[in-house]
């Protein structure tokens, strides 16, 4: 339901973007994300987007580093870019 044309892969977002998770890879990686509080529909912030596509997302106090290969598989919708 959250899949929309606006969805972009996480590694293409920029530092400061506020994002909503649209889709995630399946399997154990997904389970690991859910345990950390990240799944479809959650609002997160792109805390840092490093050159090369490694992304650190933040939800509340939680910061999670995601390698560029994995970030490519996570689709997000940019819903704001407050902190630029």
């Amino acid at each position, binding site marked *: 339901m959250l899949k929309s044309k606006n969805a972009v892969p996480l590694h293409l977002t920029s530092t400061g973007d506020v994002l909503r998770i649209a889709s995630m890879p*399946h399997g*154990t*990686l*997904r*389970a*690991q*994300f*859910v*345990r*950390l*509080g990240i*799944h479809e529909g959650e609002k997160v912030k792109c*805390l*840092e987007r*490093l*050159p*090369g*596509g*490694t992304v*650190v997302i933040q*939800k*509340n*106090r*939680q*910061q*999670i*580093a*995601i*390698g*560029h*290969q*994995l970030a490519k598989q996570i689709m997000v919708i940019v819903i704001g870019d407050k902190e630029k």
Partner: protein
Amino acid sequence: MEENKSEHINHFEKHRHPELSFLEKDIGKPKLVLVGNPNVGKSLVFNELSGMNVEVSNYPGTTVEIIKGSYKNYDVYDTPGVYGVSSFNDEERVARDEILGADIILNIVDATHLERDLFLTQQLIDMGKKLVVLMNFMDDVKRHNIKIEIEKLSQFLGVDIFPIIAVKGEGFDKIAGAIERAREGIQREGMHGSLHSMLKMVGSQAEALLILEGDEFIAKRHGVHPGSSRDEIYIDRRNRINYIVNQVVIDDSPKKRISEMVGRWAIKPITGIPILAFALYISYLFVGKFVAQIVVNFTEIQIGKGHWEPWVREIITAIIPSSSWWNSLLVGDFGIITMTTTYLLFLLLPLVIAFYVALSLMEDSGYLPRLATMVDRTLSVLGLNGRAVIPLILGFGCVTSATITTRLLGTEREKTIATALLQFAIPCSAQLAVIAALLAGAGFLPMLVYALTIFGVLIAIGTILNKFLHGESAPLLLDLPPMRIPRIQNVARKTFYRTFQFMKEASGWFFVGALAVGIAQITGLLVYLQKLIIPLTTHWLQLPPEASTAFIMGVVRRDFGAAGLYHLSLSPMQITIALITITLFVPCIASLMVMMKERGLKEGFIIWIGTWVVAFFIGGVVSHIVI
């Protein structure tokens, strides 16, 4: 990747000897198991409960330690930090089994990360375990202006919650009473039906739940098929926890905190690289200057060569005459008792401890995961993810200990790549000191040639292996802990356990290696080998024939090889060629042995042969270019 996984599963299960498992030991005493996410202060609580009387053992088939103590009439177990009960890696499998065997669970949560931590709590409750929650970091809660309605949270979960500040020992007086109040919490409804039918088949609610959540190991143990409702159950649990946290936590914390800013600087290359340079410089002052020069000079020269060796030589010679080859095998130049003991205890041990102290400080401050994040993209060129920065850094301390550390990498593929890089291109501290001294004398250009060659080989080997090895490397997925001032106790404990593990796993191989070399010397094989490579040394590398002795000695001890070059009269470029060859070629015999054990005979042998070929090939090519 799937294949790797099942291989790994078999390896793990094969090494589980039920009769040795801690679950079956001491059947009489109730088991109190400490469970929590990483970095929540479990160890401090464990120390408080068990005091000094602690047993450390490796879980069969893994490097994961089981730490056992006793408290009142309980056996207390510390577990590795996990985000949930499942079987995604060795730590989780060990924690899972400890949890399954627990009578009472002491669940420690980080009050500032409740959304994350309560997922595990709810899962433990759903497993039907008796538990009580200790909520740590209550001082941070106050400082960050977070309000938590503990009473209400306790009602939601159906278990008691006790606030503590573990570093100050606050609330520890309540733990005794807390344990007595452990009970089953409020389980999630909605899955009763399927849980019930699974329960009938396996006889334990905890295991029934894990099977429904798709745990292959537990399913296999009971001969049933793993369930397929993990996503469903996880999302349901996640939503429940999010709801509860929304009801009980009011977070009014100010947006920017200094520690958080430093944390972000450490990740961004523009600020992160200077921070890395600073961290490395401080580590160099501590490890390279203080320990490697001052401490090791004292331990190796004064204690080792000054007291230990003459003393033990005298005793042995009194029993076995010095003319006997036994004598030279035991206390000769490469004697097992003399050289190996000095090397291991008085040279390597202080260095390894120093490296582990530096590593633990970087880890506990929250810097290391951020460094791993910063270098992740760069290391991916070599087929590694950011976590590989840990064994690579450690390699500059001791390649042998770093080879053991490659176990923390996610896939066999990454372990192979990291091991190869360590064996080929990373000079260990014993060697670095000699290399630095020789290069400093040789001048700037030779130094540049050396650095570029070694760096080039490192990149080339990683890139080639990444291209041709089958499979895929695991992507980085890392929970970044908050930046904190490291606790001395924690750093000391980690250093102790790691050093202990290194000594336990590697020290035997140093003796085996010394024995092999000793025999080679007595039988004349060593001289034969030296002669064998003389043509290669003189014609191809364009070095004096004596340099071949240095190369062969490098097999015995890496620093011996480099040190052997001191006495030769070499031109600056010849020094560079010799050092390039010695760095690339053969790691010390102990790291070779450990590599064979870790990576298997075949792979270990291929890498070993590879180091010979690459070292002499590259050395010769550079020689023909610069000389």
